[in-house]
Every structure is written in C-alpha cells, then in structure tokens.
C-alpha cells in the first residue's frame, strides 16, 4: 500500500510543474483573442438588455414541467400538489441558499434550464440588469390587482413600467432575544452594539448587514445624513463598517444557516441576535422563550419576487404558476407556513382560517404604516437615487465585510 502511495506521489510531483506550465501557456494563448470580446456593461446608464422582448399574450397549454429555483420552504407540498393536479405542470425544485446563489443559477437567462426564481430584492436588479429576466404580461395574472399598491410595481422588479415577475411575500429582519435574560423587551438595536452583552450576540454572516448598521446610524448619528441604508456614500459606508468592526468582539457567532441561530439560542450560546420570523416561529414551536421585536429605529427586510427567466423553457406553466401563487388562499398558506407577510390584500381572512390571529401576527392587514418602518433589501449600486454615482456598490460591501468587519 505504501509503495503504491509513494509512487503515485512521485508521479504527482512530476505533474505539478506541467500543470503550471499548461495553465500559463493556455492563459498566454487566450489573452490575445479574448480582450476584445469583453462584456462592456457598467453600472452607469443602466439598461435592461431584455426589456424589448415580446411578452406572452395568451396562456397556452401547459408544457407539463416547471423548473423553479426557490428558497427552502417556498415549494411546500401543501400548495405545490394542488397546483400540479390543477395544471398538470410537474414542479421541479432547485433550492438555493443565498441571493447570490440565485443570481449565479440564473446566469445566461436560467441557462434554458430554469423557468423562474423566487429571488429577494437584493438579487432582483442584478438578475434583470444581467439580462437574465423576461418581461411579464400582468394582464394574464388576475390576482395581481388584489395586491397592495406597494407590491404591484415595486422598483426591485419593475423598471420603466416593465414587469419582470410577480411579487410574492415579504417580511422583516427582527431583533431576537431570550425572554429569560430580557424580561423587559429591548426597544432599540443598540443592545446589539452594547459591550455589556459581549459574547452573547449572533448576527447573519451576510454583507447586507452593513445596511442594518447604516439604519441604526440613521437615527443615532444624524450628522451622517443617511436617508437610505442601501445608498451609502463613502463616509456613510465607512461609518457603518466601523460600527460593525466595533461590534465584532461582542459577536459569539456570525450565522450562515437559520438552523445555526436556532441552535445557538436553544443552547444558550446567544441571548440576543438578528434573524428572520422563521427562526422565531420555529423556536416558539419548540416552546423556547424567544422574544422578537421591530425596534424603534425600524428594521431591514426582504421582499421576494417570482421572476421569469429570459430563456424559460416552459413559459405557459410559468404563467400558470404566477396566476396560482398570487391567489389569496395560496398567499395565506405560504404566509402562515413560512412566517411572512402576503402581498395579496385578500389573504388576511384565509390566514385567520388556517391559524387564528395569524393575520395580525404577520401584519398582513396593516402594511401601509408598518411597511414604512421596514427598509426592504435592494442591491446597493454605484448610482444613487439622486443620479450621482458616488454610492458604494455591492462588490465593495462584500470585500469590506470579509476584510474589515470579519
């Protein structure tokens, strides 16, 4: 056995320089030809490459298949099975763990493989400016008229009144605390930055956390003049990153999976944290004394959209899915099972039928005022709302998160 190992190794050692040489040669050969074919896209003067594609005018016969990229829990048999029976479209699920994974999977218009993606606002703009989303004809989706106005044509999935998908559900990122350690509920995000709670805090391992720090500074450092936590100028951005770097010693764990945060609360590794209603409802289901609050500063949140892929191979089934998923009953089923807020106004009654009081619990009946306190995720881009291009783009958020915060 040893002989074989050593011999293999000796050969491996001989191969290594070859590999390096091959790489250099190939790199050298390619460099001449490829420089001219650079994709010349930039963040200034953005246009959606697929904006002029013709939309579907009439839904035809289903293709029998529907390939969806979704968040885990978004394709529950409770509502997927009836859809399959009604339409004959077999749903094939591909689950993604992060917004960025969704962007990656949708590359090349879904590659002619995927039909739709349930992406969040921080990924949507990247998908549609990347030319990977297809315009959608809203006339074919009747329940869309029952949506709250804020979710009919939101800026994250509708550009120049062209829709690239149908909004789905939304929810806040909440402050979570152990009720045993905090008998009086905290009312400010400041507890997450208080050295008193060193080693008890858990926050998401996600560059979009910089927006949470910016939201906190919007109230606590008015001199910075932050108006939108996703549109930060260099000094505002630096202040938010500095705040997070100061928070780092207090952090017990940057969680990357929802299950990690649940584990840490259950086992007493963390008593405070930032998380999703999903973790709260799971812990409550386990009779754990978890408390959740939307503090006085407001909160960040997400709003998801079922976006249509530019090369969707099953467009008829995709439209049937958009019709189905936006109806009040299905909206209510997803809201109650996942723990988020539906976009359809009429879902409230169905929610209470499924679980008494759930309409109030998930704020399905009071969005207008409540929605204003939630800053929904969107992709930070270099061009600010005022047209100036002095905002910090998302790629810098990622590198600051990896090199300055963590």
């Amino acid at each position, binding site marked *: *056995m*040893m*002989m074989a*190992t*050593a011999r293999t*190794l*000796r050969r*491996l*050692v001989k191969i*290594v320089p070859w*590999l390096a040489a*091959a*790489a250099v040669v*190939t*790199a050298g050969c*390619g*460099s001449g030809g*490829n*420089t001219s074919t*650079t*994709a010349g*896209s*930039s*963040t200034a003067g*953005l246009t959606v490459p697929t904006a002029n594609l013709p939309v579907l005018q009439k839904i035809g016969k289903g293709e029998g298949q529907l390939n969806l990229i979704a968040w885990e829990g978004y394709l529950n048999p409770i509502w997927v099975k009836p859809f399959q029976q009604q339409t004959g479209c077999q749903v094939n699920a591909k689950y993604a*763990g*992060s917004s*960025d*994974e969704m*962007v*990656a999977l949708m*590359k090349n218009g879904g590659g002619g493989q995927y039909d739709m993606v349930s992406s969040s606002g921080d990924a949507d703009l*990247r998908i549609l*400016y*990347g*030319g990977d989303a297809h315009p959608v004809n809203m006339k074919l989706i009747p329940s869309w008229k029952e949506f709250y106005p804020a979710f009919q044509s939101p800026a994250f999935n509708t550009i120049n009144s062209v829709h690239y998908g149908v909004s789905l559900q939304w929810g806040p990122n909440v402050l979570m605390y152990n009720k045993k350690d905090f008998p009086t509920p905290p009312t400010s995000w400041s507890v997450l930055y208080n050295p008193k709670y060193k080693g008890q805090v858990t926050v998401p*391992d996600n*560059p979009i956390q910089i927006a949470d720090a910016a939201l906190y500074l919007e109230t606590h450092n008015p001199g910075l003049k932050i108006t939108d936590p996703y549109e930060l100028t260099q000094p505002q951005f630096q202040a938010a990153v500095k705040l997070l770097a100061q928070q*780092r*010693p207090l*952090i*017990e*764990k*940057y969680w*990357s999976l929802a299950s990690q945060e649940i*584990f840490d609360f259950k*086992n*007493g*590794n963390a008593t405070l944290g930032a998380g999703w209603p999903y973790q709260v409802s799971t812990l409550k289901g386990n009779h754990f004394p978890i408390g959740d609050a939307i503090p006085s500063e407001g909160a960040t949140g997400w709003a998801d959209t079922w976006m249509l892929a530019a090369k969707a191979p099953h467009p008829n089934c995709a439209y049937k899915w958009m019709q189905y998923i936006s109806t009040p009953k299905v909206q209510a089923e997803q809201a109650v099972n996942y723990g988020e807020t539906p976009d359809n106004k009429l879902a409230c009654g169905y929610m209470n039928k499924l679980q008494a009081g759930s309409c109030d619990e998930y704020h399905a009946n009071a969005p207008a005022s409540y929605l204003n306190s939630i800053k929904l995720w969107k*992709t930070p881009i*270099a061009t600010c709302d005022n047209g100036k291009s002095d905002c910090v*783009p*998302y*790629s*810098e958020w*990622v590198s600051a998160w*990896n*090199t*300055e915060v*963590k």
Partner: protein
Amino acid sequence: MAVTASAPSARESGRPGAWTRVSGALWRRPWARATLLLTPPLAWFLLLYIAALVVLLITAFWQINPFTTNIERVWSLSNLSTIFSSSAYQSVILRTVGMAAAVTLIDTVVALPFAYFMARIATRRTRTFLFVAILLPLWASYLAKVYSWLLIFTHDGVLDWTLSRIGLGQVHLIYTNWAVLTVFCYLWLPFMIIPVYAALERIPPSQIEASQDLGARTWRTTRSVILPLALPGIVAGSIFTFSLTLGDYITPLLVGGTSANFMGNIIYSNIGIANNVPFAAAMALIPIAIMAVYLLTARALGAFEAI
C-alpha cells in the same frame, strides 16, 4: 440440427473465431494492448480532472462585473494583487497554513506511538479491534461528526458540564479556533495513523535486533532506525492531514467563531455569497501552490526515495 452442428465444425476446420484473432493480434502488439487499456482512464483524467483544473487556473486571471457579477474576460493579476496586498487576506493565509501545520504536528505525535503499538506490540486480535476503531468513524457522516463536537463544546455542553462538575470551571471552547483545531485533529487522525502503521509494519525485526546488537539503546534505535524508516509514512500521512485542513471550510463554518476565516471560507463566500468565481479561483491557487512547494520539499528531503 444443422445450426447446432455448425460451431464444432468451424473449430474442427482450424479457422480461429473473431475473438481469438483479436486477442492474437493484441498479443503480438503490446503497444495496442496498452493503448486500449489506458485510453478510457486517461481520457477521464485529462478531461474531467486536468481540464477542470486548468479552467479554474485561467479563471483566476479574469474579473467580474461588480454589479451584474458577469465574468469579464480581461486578463490581469488584480485578484492576486488584492490577495497579496490586503493584510486581512495575508492573515487568513497565515492562519490557514498555521492551522494545517498544527493539525499535522499533533496528529503525527498522536499517530506515531499508536501506530507503533498496533504494528509491533499488539496481538492480532487487539490490532483488528484497533483497526476497526480507527476506520469506523470514517463510515460516519462528516457532518454528523462535526455536529457531535458542536454538542460537546456548546454552552453547558458535555465538556463544560463535566469540567464544572469536577470543579475545574468552564473553558467555553465553542466558536474558538481551539475548537476548530480539536475537530480537525479528530477528523484527519485516521489518515495519519494508517500510512504510519503501514510504514512501521514493514520494518524488518532483524534491523531493530541488529541495532540492539550494536549496542544502541531504545532511544538511539528509535531515532536512527525506526523514525527514518517511518518517515515515508509520516510524509504520506502529513500530505493528507495538511491538504485536507488547507481546503476545509465546513468545520470552521460550524464550530469556528468570529476569527475562523480560513482560505476555504474565503473561497466559499466568494463563490456562494459574492458570486466572484475569479477571485475564488485566485484564492484557490494559493493552496495549490503551497501543496506544490510541500510536495517538492518532501521529495527534496528524500522522503519518496526512502521506500
């Protein structure tokens, strides 16, 4: 009747069958035999393994569009220069190499006496039992093993509970790099023990007796006979422990804390979170380079000629 009789009649007439002719032709041409035998595995190796690696290496010299994250095929060294000019990435590289070295060292120190006992002292039955004990964890799921360590290290977990019961206080190892080190040492130990055992088992007893006949005591025999002969095994094992630690990101992700940023984690977050494949590829060049240096050093030290 005529059909069944045709086969023996062909053989009787002395004409060889098609298969016999083919095998005869191959027997006369050894190069054809070798080509047929080697083409499928070689094609697989070149296409899937080398080609994928080369594509990865090329990607390292491209960039992404910062907004749409589409890959832009412009050649530059900017990814590598980012890695080498940022003190954050430098400390990640140093931390990873340090961790890999520490894991290798600890596993060597643990594996040597263990493998020696197995190879030269233990009875046949004990040896079988120890083999099963070493190999059994390899059949268990990697994640199950890491999660069980998480339960040991957690707040009021098995470790802290036991320590506080016997009055030693609590150590709070969860989410520290000590926890990461412990789990790595546990996970990769079998990969060190098995090659070291194989090397020690092959030492002829006559050499140890000769050493003793020449007046060498235990320490001298260990140092001058056993260790040099065990070295190839240690080097082989260290290649496993070192490279496995260099590339792993799941253990730091699960049991590591705020300073558990290793090269694997940077690669993972640049592919999974930032979708910056070129930067991840550039980062992946570094463990490849480190392993190349490691293997060449091992060869220069004569570790491979010793067998």
